């Protein structure tokens, strides 16, 4: 793995890719939130994101690579860390010294990964087919209707909400932890941690709110 062979290099890479994804999440959330406030704004923003060359051909691939890097690295780390304790304890009280979220990043991470699979299948794949395979005409106001249709199903809405709860746990540990990983631990850390914890709760809660909002406010047929 070259420069990523050292444990601290991996740690920093994990933190930086994580921070990048946290930043992306805020942007994604902002656009989604507009769907609750004003469908037209949502359509405009979605159209811009979906047709802008910079977004489509630079930012989108970077994002996808970022996601892939983050989870591949997470899995590699998990395997190495399990190997570091070949014989496990008969009695191990992790809850006495650490949070569930911090000890189970692999579980929350894998749930989020599974969610991303569903999410890609729901939105990204149809979008790519629409634009680049079928090469249909750009219709500027289709996004909102497509979005609301997706949340008709209670099963899908439920799965989305479940994934967001796990995202909460993942962010609860991961966001604050990434600053420690890049070496940031000083008198400002407490305030920063407060912010990261707030973010960890509010953003996923907001996503849950949006999903439920569209589920219960279906379009008139």
């Amino acid at each position, binding site marked *: 793995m070259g420069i990523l*062979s*050292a*444990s*601290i*290099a*991996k*740690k*920093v890479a994990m933190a930086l890719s994580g921070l990048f994804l946290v930043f992306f999440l805020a942007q994604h959330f902002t656009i989604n939130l507009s769907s609750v406030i004003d469908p037209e704004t949502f359509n405009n923003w979605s159209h811009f994101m979906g047709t802008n060359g910079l977004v489509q051909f630079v930012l989108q691939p970077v994002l996808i690579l970022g996601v892939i890097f983050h989870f591949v690295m997470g899995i590699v*780390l998990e395997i*190495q*860390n399990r*190997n*570091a*304790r*070949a*014989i*496990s*304890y*008969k*009695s*191990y*009280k*992790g809850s*006495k*010294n*650490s*949070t569930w979220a*911090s*000890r189970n*990043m692999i579980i929350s991470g894998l749930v989020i990964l599974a969610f991303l699979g569903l999410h890609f299948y729901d939105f990204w794949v149809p979008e790519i087919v629409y634009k680049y395979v079928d090469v249909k005409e750009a219709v500027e106001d289709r996004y909102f209707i497509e979005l609301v249709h997706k949340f008709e199903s209670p099963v899908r809405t439920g799965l989305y909400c479940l994934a967001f709860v796990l995202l909460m746990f993942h962010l609860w*540990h991961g966001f604050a*932890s990434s600053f*420690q*990983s*890049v*070496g*940031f*631990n*000083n008198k400002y850390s407490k305030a920063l941690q407060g912010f990261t914890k707030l973010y960890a709760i509010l953003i996923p809660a907001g996503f849950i709110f949006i999903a439920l909002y569209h589920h219960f406010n279906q379009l008139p047929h």
Partner: protein
Amino acid sequence: MKLTLKIWRQANATAKGSMKTYPIEDIEGDMSFLEMLDVLNEDLINKGEEPVVFDHDCREGICGSCSLQINGEPHGPDRLVTTCQLHMRMFNDGDTIVIEPFRAKAFPVIKDLMVDRSSFDRIQQAGGYVSVNTSGNTIDANATPVQKENADDAFYAATCIGCGACVAACKNASAMLFTSAKVSQYALLPQGQVEAATRVLNMVEQMDKEGFGNCTNTGACEIECPKGISLENIARMNREYLKASLQG
């Protein structure tokens, strides 16, 4: 008090070990955990059985040789104490106590509860020192002024006794807290600057080579450390490491 002990017994490094149950009586709250084990061993010797092997030396919390995973926590349920400082009054009559060796691939079991922690020595040897010219013109350490906060932080880092509880507590068996304490101790002092870059690179390289896991910032180490070594040291080591790597 009467207690039931469940202890890991393993004849030697290659033998397959298992948990054995021992009832024990007449234990007083004022005894230390190791004194309790002494009582057990006396009992076993009298019965002609093999006593339980465990590491210890100073019995006052300074040498770092006592270890033991007690009821799922290194050095037991109390905070800021080593196993030798742990009082039996932390337990209640009738309790079952599970006693295991510190578990990590880099800490192989030698016998019963005793593990080989020489991986820590090798990390130290990789850079945990300052080179001083002793040819007759040695500079008095006090001649170099050190900022008070730095002196304090370096001192706190230096209180690490190398017990390995941080590794034992960590779900990843990572040695970051130990290594970072040793790195910090020098990184904060002017005397440590000459070898600062090579020190952190070499010590981390050795740490990885020994087969310790990767740190995921669970913070378990800081909570279980008998000396209260802070996670700030790990952040400092990460900084030092980045700085040294970028310098090339």
